[in-house]
């Protein structure tokens, strides 16, 4: 319990009559990179805003290093670096002025300031724009200045709302690399709806849909927890034509097979999808089952379920909300 840097308990948030969060629970230990996934409007941003103390929960609470955010707003905020969505910045300030302002508000001791500034300029790559007006910066640089602002006080916790949105592929790669480096010592929550981003950077994935937590697992766990899919093409061995029911029935027999569904009839046989448990390789069992049922196996290919499929299944099954 002590090791939880962020903890969220039964978080509920209403905006007027609409309920944005319907009871969210999770906790994040030190040094973990957590990816928040979910369709737009699922409640990712709202959850982050509650943890950072910008919004108050309707019920439930958020704790940062064991302290309730609502009762200890200043202490908890001091440990958090937060980059809101779209990186809102004071456009009338120069980058250097803005970082000075943040350092003043954060009361960073003068002795550390120079070293922190140097590190931020280097890490975020903003050395060339320090004397430029923020309003004139490109989206990529704004995002970097926002990151520098979030990290300048060397916080233990970083909360980044869509840190790579609007960046070009090179910039995305750089930010991801930065996030992975930061994740070695910091606790990090980042939201995104870019799935490869989660695969590339996160230790753990939390999927929120329609205000509820629908999955909380490692990337690996999410991709395999659903089982593996084996695409099979079968044909009759003898003269007698294939009977669909019999094929399904016979391939279903092995214990390792969860379900069988016919995809369609092809010229040379019947295409069937077999869903198996992830832990076992069901191909051998399917082969045996096919022989026993007097079927010829023309093709067999094992595929792991992609994160994208899992995401779509989890976020679309009850609402029918299409992204």
């Amino acid at each position, binding site marked *: 319990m002590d090791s939880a840097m962020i903890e969220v308990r039964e978080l509920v948030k209403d905006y007027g009559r609409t309920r944005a969060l319907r009871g969210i629970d999770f906790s994040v230990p030190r040094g973990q990179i957590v990816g928040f996934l979910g369709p737009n409007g699922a409640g990712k941003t709202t959850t982050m805003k509650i943890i*950072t*103390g*910008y919004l108050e929960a309707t019920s439930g609470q958020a704790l940062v290093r064991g302290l309730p955010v609502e009762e200890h707003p*200043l*202490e908890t905020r001091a440990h958090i670096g937060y980059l*809101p969505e779209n990186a809102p*910045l004071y456009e009338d300030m120069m980058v250097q002025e803005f970082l000075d302002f943040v350092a003043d508000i954060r009361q960073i001791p003068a002795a550390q300031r120079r070293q922190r500034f140097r590190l931020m300029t280097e890490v975020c790559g903003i050395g060339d724009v320090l004397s430029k007006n923020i309003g004139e910066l490109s989206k990529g640089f704004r995002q970097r200045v926002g990151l520098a602002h979030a990290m300048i006080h060397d916080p233990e916790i970083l909360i980044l709302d869509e840190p790579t949105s609007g960046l070009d592929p090179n910039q995305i790669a750089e930010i991801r690399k930065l996030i992975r480096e930061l994740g070695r010592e910091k606790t990090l929550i980042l939201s995104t709806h870019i799935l490869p981003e989660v695969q590339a950077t996160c230790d753990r994935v939390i999927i929120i849909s329609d205000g509820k937590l629908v999955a909380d697992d490692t990337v690996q766990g999410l991709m395999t927890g659903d089982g593996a899919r084996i695409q099979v093409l079968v044909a009759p061995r003898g003269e007698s034509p294939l009977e669909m029911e019999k094929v399904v029935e016979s391939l279903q027999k092995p214990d390792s097979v969860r379900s069988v569904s016919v995809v369609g009839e092809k010229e040379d046989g019947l295409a069937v999808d077999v869903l198996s448990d992830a832990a076992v390789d069901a191909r051998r069992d399917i082969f045996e089952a096919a022989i026993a049922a007097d079927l010829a196996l023309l093709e067999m290919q094992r595929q792991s379920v992609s994160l994208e499929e899992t995401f779509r299944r989890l976020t679309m099954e009850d609402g029918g909300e299409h992204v």
Partner: protein
Amino acid sequence: MSKTLTIARREISAYFNSPMAYIVVGAFLLISGYLYFSTVFLAGTASLRSFFSLTPLLLVIFAPAVAMRLVSEELRSGTLELLTTMPVRDEEVIAGKFLAGLSVVASGLLMTLAYPLSIATVGDLDWGPVIGGYLGLLLCAAALIGIGIMASTWSRNQITAFILALMIGLVLWLFDKVTFFVPASLGRVLEYLSIDFHFRNIARGVIDTRDLLYYFSLLLISLFLAVLALRRRHA
């Protein structure tokens, strides 16, 4: 306190980095200058009477114009989220913005000191009412900036904030102009609520705690409501 000053410093430099402050202060000086010159040169009297009698009304118009962007702009651009998720209290945010707004208006008032000084070089000037007048203007400005900030927390649109603050200020300014039409007892109440009535008391050179109390309560109530509005944005 230091965070309040940090915020105030940022806001002041934001004012003078944009044409806004120059335009508003410039327009204020232009109109107040006309009031001064029209008495001194056209009417030929070495007096600041018309300057002091109409400048409160000018402040009713110009203070909201200075204050309107203070919170609205942060609501519009989303920077309020950036600011209020740093370890800073809502009270410090509002106090810092108040100090910045007041500094801008005070810098405008400071420049009008040229008028009494120029009169003093050519004739006898009774400094008592001048000092009282400026103290009164400063108090008016403080209360009106407070009202302007309060209105600024209500809308992400600066113009809406300006019009709301202007209406509140005008009503407060008009209160003692309508006492003639209402029963005497109500008239007393209206007079006490009037921003101009208390100004005239102070401008006479008589510093009464009742007048000071009026301005300070007006200011504190507006700033308190501004903090409250900021807090409600979190809910």
